[in-house]
């Protein structure tokens, strides 16, 4: 699914978080949204997902303003797993709460896809590690066979080895299943590894965009300072 966002504005009370955002998410490509903490990345993807309303501008999904959000899925920053449910029930959440019982086979297949061992099938989220929680959350996001997947800081809180593993896993799964992916991150290494195109947001506007493989060659001073960690005056 192709998603076009034009002149999007979103505010909370008097604070404009998104001042004027225009970007295009290409079908079956991996789009990376980069930016510092608090720049509005999460608000942007939640607005595209229609979890938030917006104040001005428009969003077109395959050229239409209406969309069935059942085609979307999201991996939340800290997993957002339901503590009172078992891992299998978390993954097959919608089937589980609707009292369907024949989801075990699909859950095991998904667990296998995301590199989870069957032994955690009946465990609770509090009994597994942070890396495993991300994988469970990813499996839950894939359960409904989404056309578009939104990934909110998928490597946050993970050590470098686990971050690499999660990046490889995301890349493998979205390529194999031909899913359009929108990832928000402030991790340049992850962006280069998993993305096709990037957008860099700063102070509520798009400061830079381009090919992920050419991120390090950017000419934009603000983005450069973000990459190097240098403090520059604009």
């Amino acid at each position, binding site marked *: 699914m192709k998603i076009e966002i034009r002149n999007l504005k979103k505010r909370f009370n008097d604070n404009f978080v998104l001042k004027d955002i225009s970007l295009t998410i290409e079908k079956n490509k991996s789009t990376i949204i980069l930016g510092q903490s608090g720049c509005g990345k999460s608000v942007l993807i*939640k607005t595209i*997902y229609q*979890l938030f309303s917006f104040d001005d501008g428009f969003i077109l999904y395959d050229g239409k303003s209406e969309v069935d*959000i*059942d085609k*979307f*899925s*999201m991996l*939340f*920053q*800290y997993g*957002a*797993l*339901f503590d009172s449910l078992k891992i299998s029930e978390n993954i097959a*959440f*919608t089937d589980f*709460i*609707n*009292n369907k019982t024949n989801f075990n086979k699909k859950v095991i297949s998904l667990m296998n896809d995301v590199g989870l061992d069957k032994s955690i099938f009946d465990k609770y989220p509090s009994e597994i590690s942070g890396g495993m929680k991300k994988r469970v959350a990813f499996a*839950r996001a894939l359960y*409904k066979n989404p056309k578009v997947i939104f990934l909110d800081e998928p490597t946050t809180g993970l050590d470098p080895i686990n971050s690499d593993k999660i990046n490889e896993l995301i890349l493998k799964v979205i390529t194999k299943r031909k899913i359009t992916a929108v990832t928000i991150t402030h991790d340049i290494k992850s962006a280069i590894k998993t993305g096709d195109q990037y957008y860099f947001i700063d102070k509520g506007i798009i400061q830079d965009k381009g090919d992920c493989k050419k991120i390090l060659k950017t000419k934009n001073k603000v983005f450069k300072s973000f990459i190097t960690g240098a403090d520059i005056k604009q």
Partner: protein
Amino acid sequence: MKFIEIIGEFLLHFLSSLGKFIQFIIFFFKYLVKPKFYLKNNLSYFVGIFISSIPIIALTGIFSGMVLALQSYTGFSRFSAESAIPNIVVLTLTRELGPVLTGLMISARVGSSIAAEIATMRVTEQIDALKTLNTNYYNYLVTPRVLSLTLALPIFVTLVDFIGVMGGYIVSVHRLGFSDNLYLLNTVDFLSLNDYLSGIFKAFVFGFIISIVSCYCGLFSDKGAFGVGSSTTNAVVISSILILSSNYFLTELFF
């Protein structure tokens, strides 16, 4: 000038919160009319509330009844009216103390836990996750809690009434020297069905107040640990104030 600004800001905040709360209640009834019940979820929640609340309910009932018998004796013995103690104990418990004390205790025990649980879900994005999983949080979170507590509170109040009367009986018979048969006879003879039902009606109202306020405070909590803490406090404080104030109007209704 500054003072007027502060009052104006407070009023605006209060009115907008009140509007949001009323809208929340309207949405609750809207989804209750066309419900999607998650039976397993509803039942397990009801059972959970029931089991976890029984000990405090029993303690509330027994000590209220015992204290009531002792204090009534202190007053009535001055007019040689000790024989009215069973009547006073049973009337006070069924009409007033049973529903009010149970409401306050359940607000502290269950209301706080509802608010904290939902607020934590809000902070950890589980509410957003529900939306992304096509699950309406009114159906999944609010309805089971409100229905469970509204239906459970009358049962709790009945238990408190019974255990409280037994507490009064124990003190009156074993401490104050009442005849056991006479005490029970006075209790049963004096109590009318209306007395009991007025308390049960209050229990329904208090159960609804506690659960709807707690769900609202949890769902609209601020972010972070502070947000969870203040939503829990707000749930208990607002529920308690609403219980005490609505109790007056309900008492007027049944007077």
